[in-house]
């Protein structure tokens, strides 16, 4: 069971779409971290919906920086707190997939390399949602976005998703995990472990987006569950270099069950669905799922 706190640290009234998974992502993370936390966020849906000036949904200290530098700013916050002797404060940085796997990659890589005591959470909705659903390096193969549209000339995104958690693992940092908002117990445990880790920790969180993926708002959690139950998103952690799967579906469902309810995949023909199934099978085999 996940503890329900008396006070939510992300206030209502924010401008996230009805059913937004990003707000669930942050609400659960802050539940786990508690009030003694400073949060940093890159530009993106999360920042735009939670801080419509002069309002803020954050009940803890929060700083919004540019699109590309949440890793750098969180490094500065952590260093400033450490120099003041305040080493019991959690420093958490949030970045969207665009802000993390594309434009913020170098500042994040530097932060991880320098060994700052911080938790970085990439909330991955698999495109640049805030600016109108453009593809990112984290957009999966076959997905239609406004810059990888499906149509006569193309079937949508033609490259596989960039494997960001493994890129982070290659930095040799003490804690790396994948997570999903549909498995709150697993996610909250990982956020707690990340915060307790001395040194940098990275969590790559899949976050279904009703607007960008094209499914009814009540199915946000269901989409996250289907991603995991089909093996399209695998939950694991790597602690001091040791890899472990943290959740195994009892029986892996066909990937079609995950793709079919989403508008971004609706154009895919059987051949492409089969190609995605083979890709998922190979990924599951490689990670031992």
């Amino acid at each position, binding site marked *: *069971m*996940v503890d*329900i706190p*008396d006070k*939510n640290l*992300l*206030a*209502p*009234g*924010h*401008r*996230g779409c*009805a*059913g*937004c*998974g990003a*707000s*669930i992502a942050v*609400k*659960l993370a802050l539940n786990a971290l508690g009030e003694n936390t400073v949060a940093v966020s890159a530009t993106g849906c999360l920042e735009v919906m*939670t*801080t*419509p*000036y*002069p*309002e*803020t*949904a*954050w*009940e*803890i200290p929060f700083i919004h920086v540019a699109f590309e530098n949440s890793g750098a700013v969180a490094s500065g916050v952590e260093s400033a707190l450490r120099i003041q002797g305040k080493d019991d404060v959690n420093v958490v940085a949030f970045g969207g997939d665009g802000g993390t796997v594309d434009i913020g990659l170098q500042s994040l890589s530097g932060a991880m390399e320098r060994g700052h005591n911080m938790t970085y959470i990439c909330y991955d909705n698999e495109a640049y949602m805030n600016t109108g659903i453009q593809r990112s390096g984290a957009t999966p193969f076959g997905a239609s976005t406004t810059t990888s549209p499906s149509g006569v000339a193309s079937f949508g995104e033609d490259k596989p998703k960039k494997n960001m958690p493994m890129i982070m693992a290659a930095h040799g940092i003490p804690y790396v995990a994948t997570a999903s908002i549909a498995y*709150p117990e697993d996610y909250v445990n990982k956020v707690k472990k990340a915060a307790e880790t001395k040194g940098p920790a990275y969590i790559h969180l899949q976050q279904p987006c*009703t607007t960008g993926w094209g499914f*009814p*708002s*009540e*199915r*946000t*959690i*269901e989409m996250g569950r289907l991603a995991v139950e089909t093996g399209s998103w695998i939950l694991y952690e790597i602690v001091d270099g040791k890899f472990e799967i943290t959740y195994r579906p009892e029986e892996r469902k066909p990937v079609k069950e995950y793709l079919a309810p989403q508008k971004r995949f609706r154009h895919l023909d059987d051949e492409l669905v089969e190609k995605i199934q083979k890709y998922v099978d190979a990924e599951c085999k490689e990670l031992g799922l």
Partner: protein
Amino acid sequence: MVNIGCVIKTPGNTKNNKTGSWRTFKPILDKESCIDCDNCILFCPDSCINKQHDIDYDYCKGCGICAYECPSDSIEMIQEESD
């Protein structure tokens, strides 16, 4: 008034913005059949269900996640009426 650095010194003041006006469907929670699993509380994107399972309609956007994720079908979504 704009502060230097756009600092906001009032934590959580998005509460000024009553997002309940966005709603077209309204969740009605039946406490009798509720089995206290906490799913609705955990998954509500707008933090508007409290520990006593009261729904704050000032902010509920009517997304329907709580009803969809309720294992005991204790939450029904009903259409809002215009007034």
